[in-house]
């Protein structure tokens, strides 16, 4: 079910989606590491949002909204302005293009990341399918 982005309901719905999605589960079966998505202010968003995902072997064990991006300790951090993230969720901006053209920044163990690009792409697909109305 598509849910309004952003908000706690979207985050919780995405957790359910990830845990129900067979392709994500299969692709991410070797993934170990939590991830934070830092959404920087742009467009209608005036304050930074940080969404946290505890991802482990194809499951999303928990999600949380973090208060302060400076305290994020996740193994992987994806950081992008709100407008760029919305374009990704709408399918107007390819996530690889965003990563390769300075629109979405990736932090973490890049060896693990490069081995698991398909997992990241499946995660983004689930996020897109989980997104309905947008702020």
């Amino acid at each position, binding site marked *: 079910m598509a849910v309004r982005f952003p908000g706690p309901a979207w985050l919780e719905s995405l957790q359910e989606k990830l845990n129900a999605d067979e392709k994500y589960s299969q692709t991410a079966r070797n993934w170990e590491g939590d991830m934070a998505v830092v959404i920087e202010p742009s467009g209608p968003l005036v304050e930074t949002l940080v969404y946290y995902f505890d991802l482990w072997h194809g499951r999303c064990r928990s999600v949380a909204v973090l208060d302060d991006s400076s305290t994020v300790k996740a193994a992987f951090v994806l950081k992008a302005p709100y407008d760029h993230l919305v374009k990704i969720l709408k399918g107007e901006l*390819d*996530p*690889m*293009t965003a*990563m*390769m*053209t*300075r629109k*979405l*920044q*990736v932090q973490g163990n*890049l*060896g*693990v*990341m*490069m*081995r698991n*690009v*398909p997992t990241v792409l499946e995660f983004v697909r689930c996020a897109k399918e989980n997104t309905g109305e947008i702020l």
Partner: protein
Amino acid sequence: MQPILKIDLTRGETAEISAPPEWERHYLGGASLAARLLYPELVPDLVPLSEAAPLMILTGPLTGTAGPTVGRFVVCGRSPATGLWAESNCGGFWGPELRFCGYDGLWLTGRADRPVYLWLADGRLEVRQAQAVWGQDTYAAQETIRTEIGVPNARVLTIGPAGENGVLFAGLFCDHGRTAGRTGLGAVMGAKNLKAIAVKGTGKIPLASPEAFASLRGTANRMLKADNIAQVTHALGTAGVADYADYLGSMPKKYYHQATMDGVDKISGATMTETILKGFSTCHGCVIACGRVVDLGDGIRRKGPEYETAVGFGPNLLNDDLAEIVRLNEICDRYGMDTISASNTIGLAYHLYEKGLLSEAEVGFPLAWGDTQAAGRLLDLIARREAIGAFMADGARRFGAHFGAEQEAVQVNGLEVAYHDPRGVSGMALVYATSPRGACHNRSDYFFVDWGQAETSLGLEFLDRLGGAEKAANVARHQDWRTVCDSLVLCLFGNLPVEMVVDLVNAACGFGLSVTGLLQSGERAWNLKRAINNRLGLTQVNDRLPKTLLEPYADGPAAGYVPPLEAMLAAYYEARGWDRRTGRPGREKLQALGLADVAGDLWESG
């Protein structure tokens, strides 16, 4: 710009050459300016390994500044492998050091009557006897010459035994293992009896607006440090993309005949980082440091392989032993050979052997996929032009032809295909078919665009990586952009927006160029190189792919797909304004680009 030092090795004479100011603006420098300067000389009866053949080494207007990824220079001439336009650029510190000497380039002509090397210290040139260093490998030669001239921090550009012996994929090497590898220009240098060029300068790089440039380059370097591609390239080397290339089906295996391979992840940049990596190496002024320093357990620090070498001596030969790739890479470096062409030609030997077109008696020993010891023996024979190596030293096309199997060679116009399979990233079909130097992956690294690096500021769209004719204009646009990079001699891993690059050029040169003007300089030089090749005999028939790349894989991520080359070429010619019948740039196109003299030569000669 600073002058170019022209050196006649036959007569021992020198002259300082300055390019016309309008050429500086229209061609910027590097390979583009070299094409303009060499245009009158690159005619059909010029023999690439003759005394008359020119060898031009040029820097770009940013080379040696503190700007981003500006440590490179380019070597140009006529390729003995392809018979066409040749250019091959190289990183390290040699190019900046040449500019510190007060020269933006060297223009070598003639042939010394015995082996020599050049020693350029600021504006003072010495021609020194090289008998003692002739025959030494590239690593040893650099050390020997530095010791002989007594300047430990001089930079030495040298050939190895392969260049001396006329191997048609011999390169030029500096700063240990930095390489101008492709198109066989090391053999051109060897044919001039020129072993090496040592340089050491103390001058400053001229800048039109030093303060503006300093501010811009600081911003540019900070952008690069934060860039994802730069971070991957630093952390994992250029082989960091191997896992993704394999996932998309754009990494060929078993000489382009197999789409998948167990254990392929063992050769990736990630594995290298986790196992044998001990440090990094870098070029002048670069914040990326893509170079790898590895240790195989013997305490010796060696150069780690970049992507092409890792695949060429890895999955291309069905080898997943990273240490063996390091070893074969070092053999190539020491002999002074290009790893892409060497590994491709060896892959062809294994392929022909498997098909029964090459016998054990002809090789001298058996060839089995995955056998890296045999690959090492072949490298020895190639560098010395001994036994089967005498044929392999002429490259895949001629090697295949000698055994009646030219069609099995995965090459275009005599240059061996690099390891980005157009059956996984279709834009590379056009890139390989139309590159001015044969099957080159760098005159447009369009595989990056097919992976997603579609810069809207360049006018690029992100199109289906298994698409067809709809991406022809995109490819042409990207070729123009990369031709700009080749004129500035910028590293392709410096992932900066075009607006930043044009600002840097304007601050360095005082030009006032726009993005449109910058890209037009790329288009101009692309068409000029095409016209050079047309005059050397290239026609539309040469815009082709080897048959292997037009046969679909049975499995893997790109199974069943082949690029629709004919449709892509038709759209490409349209986008370029080229004549479909002859393969030449149209007269109007050349005139619009300010190449009326070239249009006259090309179209009035019939």
